[in-house]
């Protein structure tokens, strides 16, 4: 319930704030900036979905778009996720480039038939006659008692299906570049955001740029253990790496950015050196993104010698709203650091970082460098 400000002047780029002579932008603003740039560039791009045009503007991530591009290109829909997904697919088949927004990833369960049975397969089963350049923007919710149906990270279901691409940027820089890449991609892309990342800041260039599919990033180098984070868990993993550093363990942190296609080569290359891998998913482990990464690493280099792998993710339960339960449900910098320490120092006594230092990492700004 914030007091509404007068609508911002329609602009393509946000001012952000300047640090070291470079622009620092929030994740949430990087998202709308990416869409604004692409909508200005290509008349065929449009953005729709429940509530994209209201004053809250999908937690701010569609802010300014209605003013800039008008209600014909930025519009809400009835509560009809299934058909609206079909509508997006049909418009894409006709040559447009829809961006369909869902304020919570949980609602994608209503869209599975269209996404899995049509969008993913259309190009193939129609013999290459059409393409489906569709972006499905979707936000993982977290914290503060939202509960079981407003918290899910269901990206692995989409990774499972050939024909879909999946992206889960962990910072503002990637959010902008990957969203531009997704909009320009000729395939359906499930674009997974995380609510708690919205306020995080990074250096973000004003001009359009792409963070292309299939390229992971090594965010931090280290030789003792490899930590792969997914979505906001990259931020948690970086915090864990800080804690580990204090304990004398050098962690390498990798952000896949795009989950499908998945650049496992970068991960495998790292694990070949460290022989130790912790994967921290922002979702359930069973058949999750972490399972895929673990399997690929095991296939690629397990024959070469001992290798240690540990997956972390949501507890295998629905997400409970009660604070003490919710705290135990998610991996956090302390549990990540402790798991990584155990692999890196198998013979040392178990170590758990100082609780105060291990708080949720979202205040920690990740600005690059890229």
């Amino acid at each position, binding site marked *: *319930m914030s*007091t*509404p400000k007068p609508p911002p002047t329609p602009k393509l780029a946000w001012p952000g704030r300047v640090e070291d002579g470079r622009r620092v932008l929030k994740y949430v603003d990087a998202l709308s900036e990416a869409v604004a740039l692409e909508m200005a560039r290509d008349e065929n791009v449009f953005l729709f979905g*429940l*509530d994209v045009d*209201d*004053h*809250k503007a999908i937690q701010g991530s569609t802010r300014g778009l209605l003013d800039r591009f008008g209600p014909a290109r930025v*519009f*809400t*829909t*009835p*509560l*009809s*996720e*299934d*058909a609206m997904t079909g509508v997006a697919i049909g418009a894409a088949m006709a040559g447009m480039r829809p961006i369909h927004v869902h304020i919570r990833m*949980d*609602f994608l*369960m*209503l869209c599975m038939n269209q996404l899995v049975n049509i969008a993913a397969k259309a190009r193939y089963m129609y013999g290459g006659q059409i393409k489906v350049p569709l972006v499905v923007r979707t936000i993982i919710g977290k914290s*503060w*008692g*939202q*509960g*079981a*149906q*407003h918290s899910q990270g269901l990206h692995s279901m989409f990774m499972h299906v050939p024909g879909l691409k999946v992206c889960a940027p962990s910072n503002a820089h990637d959010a902008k570049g990957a969203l531009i890449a997704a909009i320009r991609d000729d395939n359906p892309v499930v674009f997974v955001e995380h609510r708690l990342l919205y306020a995080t800041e990074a250096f973000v260039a004003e001009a359009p740029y792409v963070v292309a599919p299939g390229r992971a990033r090594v965010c931090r180098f280290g030789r003792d253990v490899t930590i792969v984070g997914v979505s906001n868990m990259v931020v948690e993993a970086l915090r864990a790496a800080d804690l580990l550093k204090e304990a004398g363990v050098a962690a390498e942190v990798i952000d896949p950015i795009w989950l499908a296609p998945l650049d496992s080569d970068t991960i495998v290359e790292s694990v070949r050196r460290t022989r130790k891998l912790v994967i921290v998913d922002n979702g359930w482990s069973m058949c999750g993104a972490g399972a895929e990464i673990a399997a690929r690493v095991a296939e690629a280099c397990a024959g070469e010698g001992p290798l240690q792998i540990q997956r972390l993710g949501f*507890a*295998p*339960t*629905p997400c*409970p*709203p*009660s*604070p*003490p*339960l919710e*705290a*135990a*449900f998610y991996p956090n910098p302390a549990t990540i650091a402790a798991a990584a320490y155990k692999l890196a120092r198998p013979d040392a006594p178990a170590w758990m970082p100082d609780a105060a230092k291990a708080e949720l990492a979202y205040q920690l700004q990740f600005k690059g460098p890229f």
Partner: protein
Amino acid sequence: MPAKAKSTPKKAVKSGASLRLYRSLRRIRRVEEEIARLYPSDKIKSPVHLSIGQEGIAVGVCDALEARDAVSGTYRGHATYLAKGGSLAAMMAELYGKDTGCARGKGGSMHLIDMEAKVLGTSAVVGTTVPVAVGYALAQKRLKTGAVVACFLGDGATEEGCFAESLNFAALHKLPVVFVCENNGFAIHEPLSKRWATDRLCARVATYGIPAKRFADSDTAAIRKHVERALLKMRKGGGPIFIECLTWRWREHVGPGEDYDAGFRSKAMLAKWQKKDPVAKAAKAVSAKQRAAIDAEIEAEIAAAIAFAEASPFPSPEELGTDVYA
């Protein structure tokens, strides 16, 4: 309201009905006002969707129900839950995320449930409870319990495909369901005009062979009377009915405050609807003395429920893993 065919004798007494309706309406209103008051303290650990202004619908429908009947509400479900007799203390503890909550701190405000009072669990995904309520009604028919299910849904929920699917199935199998659409004209901040091709909802529902009636100002007593009568037929296998109740959400979509400054709906409409305030209307049917007594009882109950919620423990961390499977 004729006394015929009601088993609970208290319902035969007209002034009894007035007292009951006032008590229920006032209690729900006051509970939600207290929730709004407490909210900034951050003791409540769950997003709340208040039904302040809309209570007359739940109270009117539920007063016509019997104990064996069930209700299915939405995430804006405090009114439904309380009107059907869900435990206030357990609800309050649930909002606090406590182990004594109706869902043991694993649901939150959007997942209220009280199976003893036959309040089915509510859901945060719009529309999902509609077919579940229909399935519950199917079981009542099969099990010959004679019970009916009142299924509450918002205007937004009618746009979900499962609503149409549920109507067809309920009508086809003549299931004992009272569909209650609480049409407050908005889904979050989006007006009907951006979501509905026409507003001929009742006409559409009627094409399934489901008697459908719109209540333009959702008068509690009128709704109660209509449902009470319809249940006579329904309990004999008459199949579902539908009511569309126009109403107004006084507060913001989620949270304790108002949202008129956001500009998407006018405060003049609030004023218009406040003139139809179901609590004030019900109060008029009750003497000042009776009101005072009821109000005092309500305040005491609410204070006790809050005290209970505050004093209750959080679930222990091991509870994380329980009840994933039965």
